[in-house]
């Protein structure tokens, strides 16, 4: 889970151009500056490419928290 957290953080840092960005499980989109609809598409796609998984249309469209995102990732990567 630590690896997953680090790698996910890496994707966020890349997409939001911010080396200092640190993720917490309770974070949601409004907590991260610059998380607009374009950044959202880029982010979700970046995650797909990095982790080699595919989100469903529903998952793409709405994302509640980082914790939830990690749960989805963990379940896909089993």
């Amino acid at each position, binding site marked *: 889970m630590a*690896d997953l957290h*680090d*790698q996910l953080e*890496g*994707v966020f*840092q*890349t*997409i939001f*151009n911010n*080396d*200092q960005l640190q993720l917490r499980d309770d974070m949601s989109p409004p907590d991260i500056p610059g998380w607009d*609809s*374009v950044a959202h*598409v*880029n982010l979700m*796609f*970046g995650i*797909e*490419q*990095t*982790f*080699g*998984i*595919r*989100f*469903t*249309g529903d998952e*793409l*469209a709405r994302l509640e928290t980082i914790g939830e995102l990690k749960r989805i990732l963990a379940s896909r990567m089993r």
Partner: protein
Amino acid sequence: MNAHFVQSASVQSALHQANQLLSANDCRGALEVCLSAADAYEHPPGALCLKIARCYQRLGDTDAMVHWALSAVDAGEEFAVWLACASLLKNVPAASLKARRSARLAVLSSYTTVQFVPLLQIAALRQGIALEIHEGPFGQYQQEVLNPSSVTYAFKPDFLLLAVDERETNLPNHCAQPLEAVEKEMARWRSLWQHAEENSTATIIQHNFALSPEDALGHLGSRLAGSRYRMLQELNRRLAEEAGENVLVLDCDRIAGTFGKERWFDPRYWLLSRQAVALDALPLLARHTAALLAARLGLSRKCLVLDLDNTLWGGTVGEDGVSGLQIGDGPKGEAYLAFQEYLRALKSKGIVLAVCSKNDEAAAKAPFEKHPRMLLRLDDFAAFVANWRPKPENLISISRTLNLGLDSFVFLDDNPAERLAMRRALPAVETPALPDDPALYVRALNRTLLFETAVLTEEDRRRAEQYAARAKADEARASAGSLADFYSSLKMQAIIEPISPEQLLRVVQLLGKTNQFNLTTRRHSLGTVSEFLKDPSCVHFTARLRDCFTDHGLVALLIAFVHGETLSIDTWLMSCRVIGRTLEFEMLRYLCEKGRERGCRSIRGLYIPTEKNGLVRDLFSDLGFRLIEETNGTTTWERSLDDESLPQRSFIQRVASFDTLPEEINDGRLARPA
């Protein structure tokens, strides 16, 4: 879907460590950790390149930052990393980008291009092109092209990219009159091209239509002329066929197939944000689009320098002898043969081949002379260097022999150490990595897109011959007595005549890529030159040169304008293949004649210095012009037309046509001239 960019543990840990050092503000420490992790790779992973670029950005080292951000392009087509690197480069001043060319490009699209634009920018920069991009409003490509006062036209683009997808075509799923339906749709695109040509001087880049992998008709779709599948195929064919000289067509259907159509077409992203091309396919699309741009701008590579042992054949000729080499037989031998076949095809489209090998010369040549299965012959190579000196040194000498700049070269070697040495010593030379397995050589070289060609002119097809002829002429010079004897022995003839419509493509190609003998380096577009031809005050002509070895084709161009009693030279250039043949004297003679016919009293010329045209700094002075002005290195020269003397005779006979041409071309391959 594959996990393409899952990081190795060592890279992950380096990045993790670097992040910790960065939060403690230890930029140097973070940089060192990343650089030492990068040392393990020929092309370090993108995430690592990005981190290194960011460290350099923080340290204020812009050059290194640019270098590493562009290295991410070589690392692989990783969408998020490319985007991040593109944003790093956004605010870098133009001078630090060290681009070989700059161009203005308008993107007009039927889908969301907010991601594609920065990706195209970084892909173009990797090819040496600094792009200023205007992104048209979402989905309004038609309105922008049809409206003469659109923002797109006001931007004055050099290139106009039509990035469109098959949803945009007005073709039904099935149609009783398919040819009419296709013609109607084709007419729409033709009219868009025409409008763009009337309202701008831009070259159009048309993406063709990738065909979707889903089709309810299944295999029947390819059999029924009235199916949408067949109509789209027909439309793509017509686009390619009807694209004039001003339209470049990018074969997106082929790129999509290469990428994998089920990945290229990702309905989730279309539904979510109108992305017609999956985001992870965009870097590849950007690379191909940039390669076509580079080709049109004359930046494609011209010469491929090849190692021999384990590059052109399996084994080491010095150790295994000619008979011990793997070439032609068995899976490995066949792989090398297939590679040679591909190289021969490159040669016949005008790429010059050369050899640079660490071997004794006799041993290196033996396989070409003695091995029965060898496909390439010694005379396929314009230069052949086999010795024990460092390869970068040899490459420089090849570049001198062929009179081609280092940025025209690609170097291919199976040995990673040789590649590394070449990249370090001569970064201007492109040195792509080769896989261990020769079966994959063709694919690896093809993927580099370094030899993309926008058009194929007669000159391109014959270039390889001409460079070989040049090397021969140099030999003749070495053996000839005096320079005058040498020139006479070449039996040179030239056709000098006004630019004709058939010559336009070649003229624009020369304008785009001539660097050395180019007095003003004005990169006029096809549209601009077409305007010149209609201008009665314009004096323009081309020169075609042949000698006893070869027909060099159309190799020189001069454009001037009559201003009252002065004839002012706007552009004067000559291909590097024929520099030093006294053609400039013959051109001056012709120009003087034209000037007098127009009632001019003097000729005025301008020399605008660039990094590459030092060769012609003193040209006007050598031609008997006198200096009348100098500002910031740019010099203005004048020569009276009353003066009928020429400073030196040319050794060229001016003719109206070449009576007996060297043997004609068949299938794009040239028989050797007698």
